């Protein structure tokens, strides 16, 4: 799927580069173009947020990068600096915590797959559980936890495996406002400490601006890049003061206008069908 070599020579600072990435799903009665000619380069250590109307191929894009799906045409280049580390880890939309493992076992899953000895696994898991405020629940099973806690496990599981690129598919989508705020703050804290290249899908413009260095706005049917907006807000970021700054409001408006058109277009198309 991905070609690890070559990228460094052409673009020295890029971690991901896609070239006319296209994905067509064959369904009964025709084809659905989920992605069409997606060209984007993501810098090493960049946090890229992706917004767009439902069904615009955001998830498909991430799944291709994660190696869970194959593109129909086009190319993906992903840089691997350290072959010891996994290239990507994905935080899935929805509940993907294994119900048959304890919290600590879930968080350390990536390390178990890599063959890290149990003792080191436990230590690594404990470190991230502490960051996520879940230390007390290390030996609990997921059915004993709330949705917000499970989502933290999802995020921690991806971080613990220490991938070169983090892919997050609406990890906080199902959470209430307070939990979401807390987790955004925690994610910022962890991410700013690690500096990992990250791609983050969200429905919330707020969230995209709080977290991202750039925001990629997508169109639906077919899924294309409509615009890429730079978020010139300095780090480390503090969510509350960030939200009330004038720059934030201007960016919010800009992205909202871009999205509004798309959402309306998508609706009109749905009605036409």
């Amino acid at each position, binding site marked *: 799927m991905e070609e690890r070599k070559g990228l460094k020579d052409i673009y020295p600072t890029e971690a991901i580069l896609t070239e006319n990435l296209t994905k067509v799903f064959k369904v009964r009665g025709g084809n659905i173009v989920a992605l069409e000619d997606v060209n984007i380069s993501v810098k090493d250590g960049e946090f890229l947020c992706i917004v767009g109307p439902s069904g615009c191929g955001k998830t498909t894009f991430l799944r291709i990068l994660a190696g869970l799906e194959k593109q129909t045409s086009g190319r993906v280049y992903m840089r691997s600096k350290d072959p010891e580390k996994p290239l990507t880890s994905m935080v899935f939309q929805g509940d*993907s915590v294994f119900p048959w493992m304890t919290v600590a076992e879930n968080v350390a899953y990536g390390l178990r797959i890599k063959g890290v000895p149990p003792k080191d696994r436990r230590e690594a898991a404990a470190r991230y559980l502490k960051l996520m405020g879940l230390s007390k629940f290390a030996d609990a099973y997921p059915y004993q936890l709330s949705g917000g806690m499970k989502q933290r496990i999802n995020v921690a599981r991806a971080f613990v495996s220490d991938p070169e690129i983090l892919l997050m598919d609406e990890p906080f989508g199902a959470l209430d406002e307070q939990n979401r705020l807390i987790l955004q703050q925690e994610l910022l804290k962890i991410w700013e400490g690690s500096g990992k290249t990250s791609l983050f899908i969200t429905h919330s413009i707020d969230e995209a601006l709080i977290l991202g260095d750039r925001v990629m706005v997508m169109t639906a049917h077919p899924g294309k890049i409509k615009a890429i907006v730079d978020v010139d807000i300095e780090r480390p970021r503090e969510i509350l003061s960030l939200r009330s700054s004038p720059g934030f409001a201007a960016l919010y408006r800009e992205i909202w206008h871009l999205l509004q058109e798309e959402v309306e277009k998508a609706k009109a198309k749905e009605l036409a069908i």
Partner: protein
Amino acid sequence: MSMAEEQICKTFERVIVKEEKAKVKGKSWASKGLLLKVLAFLSPSLILVLWEVLAGLGVIDVRLFSSPSKIFSALIPMLYSGELLYHTMVSTRRIVLGFLAGAAPGVILGLSMGLFPPVRASLMPMVAATFPIPKLAVMPLILIIFGLGETSKIFTIAIGVFYLVLINTMAGVLNIDEIYLDVAKNFGASRFQFYTTVALPGALPMIFAGFKLGMGTALLLIVAAELSAAKAGVGWMVWRAYDMFDIEKMFVALITMAFLGYVFSCMLDLIERIVIPWKSGKG
């Protein structure tokens, strides 16, 4: 009373009635747990007493239905002589061996059929075609093939258990949520790691459901298996009592079977709780 007044009265009545209901509900909450326990003990006891009384009065024909006291007095000497224990052990051995002989290949084949589409495609027609055959109908064939000894009885039970465990295990693997497969794939799990960390644990609840169904079938089949060419066992006791028209002994055998079934299901529950600690109490 005018219409409006009547309407008001009615509403008022309804309110009062509702309040009373709420009160009763509130009261019963505290003692509900105890009440349920008492009821669970009381209702079977009541039936036993009723049975005894009606038998004593001659309303129930004791030659056909016996009575609790008669059954009890038949049970005690059988307990003391060790006769009952002997027959129970003989049947238990057949059930346990038959269960293991059916469940082990059932799990292994069920897992491979769930995991590998080619295996499923090649075996499924056979399974689907032979599963509906009543296992009792196969018994004469089993007797001819395996003779009159223990093997034929164990095999009969094994066949009944096998199908239920096989089908449940396969369904368990096929029903694992796709998102878990994606997680394993994304972390780069090897095939073997995938089996041990996702497929097997994910299918365990369904496998145990199959075990429980299989145990029910095993108890059903033991009676049939001990009908012919047996010299001992709880099922044999039933048939022996039938030949001798010994209704009390028959009831003793039936009670023993109920007890056996209860013990086996408790054991499976216990093992399930140890093997699947992650399952919530409700599900």
